[in-house]
């Protein structure tokens, strides 16, 4: 698969306009609150939502293919921007509640409107996105500006007609799910039943009905009776894509728990526990930290789960609890640097992972704006870079290599010159096509497969 740069887009600046804004290749200068914190395609791939540290959501829409400009087929342009969350202050604890968007999840589309859930540390919101491209004209009682007409000037009646207007995208908050979490929400997942969703924080998972905001059901609670005994937290969770009763959650100790909601109301007892025994030869004081799972994703087929820990991505078969079926090294050269990475806190970075549409390729981010892809069938992997310098529009991405001593080829980067401030934590893969979205700090990169945009 050869990847080309489809479009380089900076996130839109702080404005709450709802009109569609275009701009291929537009860049905004770096603002700290513009750091992208989540990226998510909708179910068709037509829309791409990003959330940032400033509480804003920017939605991109894929342009329909046009015969006039064959090269610009399928580029993503800004569709809508809105402020999802504002900073809050918890007066009881004298703490700020960040407005940073932790996760966005799209709801399956059921009518002309699109809906998505966005969450910060504490509050989940349901947003409805609608388009308006017509408006009625020719009212009898009001004039064009909406002012009441002088009735004496009205001599005949007319039927208002719908006339086309410039496309306006309106975003409204439909539900606010607040006060459900004491701890920081790290994931949300919409159930396949399209009626419920779950939200997980460090110690608890709640089940909500999309239409009910004043009540939620607690389905997992791992808070110990004595907080002194706390040694493990929930790091990520997701519903099974097909079975509405199954969900998985990962822990900071590197284990996965598959739970069945039919078994009991409180799913503290897992149905399956997926855990790989520790490799004694690699044991160090950092073993536990690097085994902490930062992301878990079901495959589209529902047969496998993908997990990301600090140094590897692993594919688990739902039917096998003892060990993953595949393990891929993301950046094993960091294994000897764990102490430095612990000191500068990089060891706590939470990388996400993603499947492609056919579950044949998996992707995850790394440092130095590198991201990695692993082909499960050919067992080949590639390292690519998301940076302005190496990504001119329509350019072909060049594979990168990190050298760990020994022979050094031209263009190789040595481990010591990796930039650990440039981390790619959030990546997303189009549900059906080979289009990927990479968030590199406050820049969004979208890459497309040049050869063919069908899944292979």
């Amino acid at each position: 698969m050869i990847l080309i740069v489809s479009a380089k887009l900076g996130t839109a600046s702080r404005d709450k306009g709802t009109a569609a804004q275009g701009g291929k290749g537009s860049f905004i200068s770096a603002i700290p609150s513009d750091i992208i914190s989540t990226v998510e395609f909708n179910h068709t791939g037509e829309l791409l939502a990003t959330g940032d540290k400033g509480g804003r959501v920017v939605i991109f829409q894929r342009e329909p293919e046009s015969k006039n400009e064959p090269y610009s087929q399928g580029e993503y342009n800004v569709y809508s921007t809105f402020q999802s969350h504002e900073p809050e202050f918890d007066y009881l604890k004298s703490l700020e509640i960040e407005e940073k968007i932790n996760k966005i999840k799209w709801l399956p589309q059921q009518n002309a409107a699109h809906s998505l859930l966005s969450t910060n540390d504490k509050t989940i919101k349901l947003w409805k996105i609608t388009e308006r491209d017509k408006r009625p004209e020719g009212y009898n009682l009001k004039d064009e500006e909406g002012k009441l007409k002088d009735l004496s000037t009205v001599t005949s009646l007319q039927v208002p007609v719908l006339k086309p207007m410039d496309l306006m995208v309106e975003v409204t908050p439909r539900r606010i799910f607040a006060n459900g979490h004491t701890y920081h929400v790290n994931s949300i997942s919409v159930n396949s039943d399209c009626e419920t969703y779950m939200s997980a924080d460090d110690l608890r998972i709640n089940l909500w009905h999309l239409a009910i905001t004043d009540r939620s059901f607690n389905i997992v609670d791992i808070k110990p009776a004595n907080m002194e005994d706390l040694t493990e937290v929930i790091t990520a969770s997701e519903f099974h894509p097909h079975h509405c009763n199954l969900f998985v959650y990962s822990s900071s100790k590197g284990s996965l728990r598959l739970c069945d909601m039919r078994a009991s109301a409180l799913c503290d007892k897992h149905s399956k526990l997926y855990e790989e025994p520790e490799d004694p030869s690699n044991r160090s004081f950092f073993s536990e930290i690097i085994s902490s799972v930062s992301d878990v994703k079901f495959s589209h087929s529902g047969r496998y789960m993908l997990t990301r820990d600090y140094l590897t991505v692993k594919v688990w078969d739902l039917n096998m609890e003892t060990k993953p079926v595949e393990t891929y090294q993301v950046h094993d050269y960091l294994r000897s640097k764990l102490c430095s990475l612990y000191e500068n806190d990089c060891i706590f970075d939470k990388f996400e992972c993603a499947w492609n549409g056919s579950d044949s390729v998996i992707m995850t981010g790394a440092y130095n704006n590198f991201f990695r892809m692993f082909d499960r069938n050919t067992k080949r992997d590639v390292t690519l870079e998301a940076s302005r310098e190496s990504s001119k529009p329509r350019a072909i991405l060049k594979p990168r290599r990190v050298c760990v001593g020994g022979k050094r080829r031209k263009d190789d980067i040595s481990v010591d010159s990796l930039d650990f401030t440039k981390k790619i934590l959030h990546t997303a893969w189009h549900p059906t096509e080979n289009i990927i979205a990479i968030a590199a700090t406050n820049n969004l990169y979208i890459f497309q497969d040049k050869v063919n945009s069908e899944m292979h």
Partner: protein
Amino acid sequence: MFLTPVVPQWPFYKLDTMFVRGLKRKCFDGEEDIEGTLAGIKAIPSYNLQRQSLLDMSLVKLQLCHMLVEPNLCRSVLIANTVRQIQEEMTQDGTWQMINTQSTGQTSLDRLVSTDILCRSSREQAEGKQVPGYSNFNKDFEDDQTQDSSETMSTASSVQAPRNLQSNVWEMENPQENRGNFQKSLDQIFETLENKSPNSVEDLFSEVDNSYYDLDTMLTGMMSNTKMGHCDGLETFSSPTTTTSNSNCKSDLNELDHIVEILVES
């Protein structure tokens, strides 16, 4: 107590390999049997120093995670688990006992008692098995409960001085009593993480209006109130750098009160 951030004097990459291979080295290299003699300690001072450095770094991280925004619980839990691991290893290989033999004249019984405390789970401790050394420590603790947190470290150290180990080696500055109360302190970190409210010592002792709290906050708040008396927190080691760093953080003193001082003194 505000820990001195330790700057190791060796390049980090060495530190990394040492840590990664640390466990292995101990197993395979007979000469480096720490259970042995003084010579044993001298043979691999670097591993112990590195481990100590990691321990101190971790403790600093736990303290520093008290910020305006609620700290990341996952990170705190992982750091705390690392600290426990180090502590367990240091107890198991007897390093810490060894160190105490050299520097103090305390009876071995007390030392064994303290080690026992470290190895016990917090639940057992809560069940209240009274241990001589520990109970003395506790008692002294309560005496200091009313000590104002904004008092200078000199006051605090003078209180603790009689029981401090007379040692100049920095890694042995952790007095035995501190170690003994280590587990307890570690546990309090989580309570601190839970209970973020007061910024002054007075608040600690003021009445908590439970009606405003949800169950979680209330439970931990109550627990913190009973245990947090010793949070006068600025005991120090006799390390020159500690004073400077603490004076720089004078404004954070009140916050530090509520941060569990890791090396608790009374």
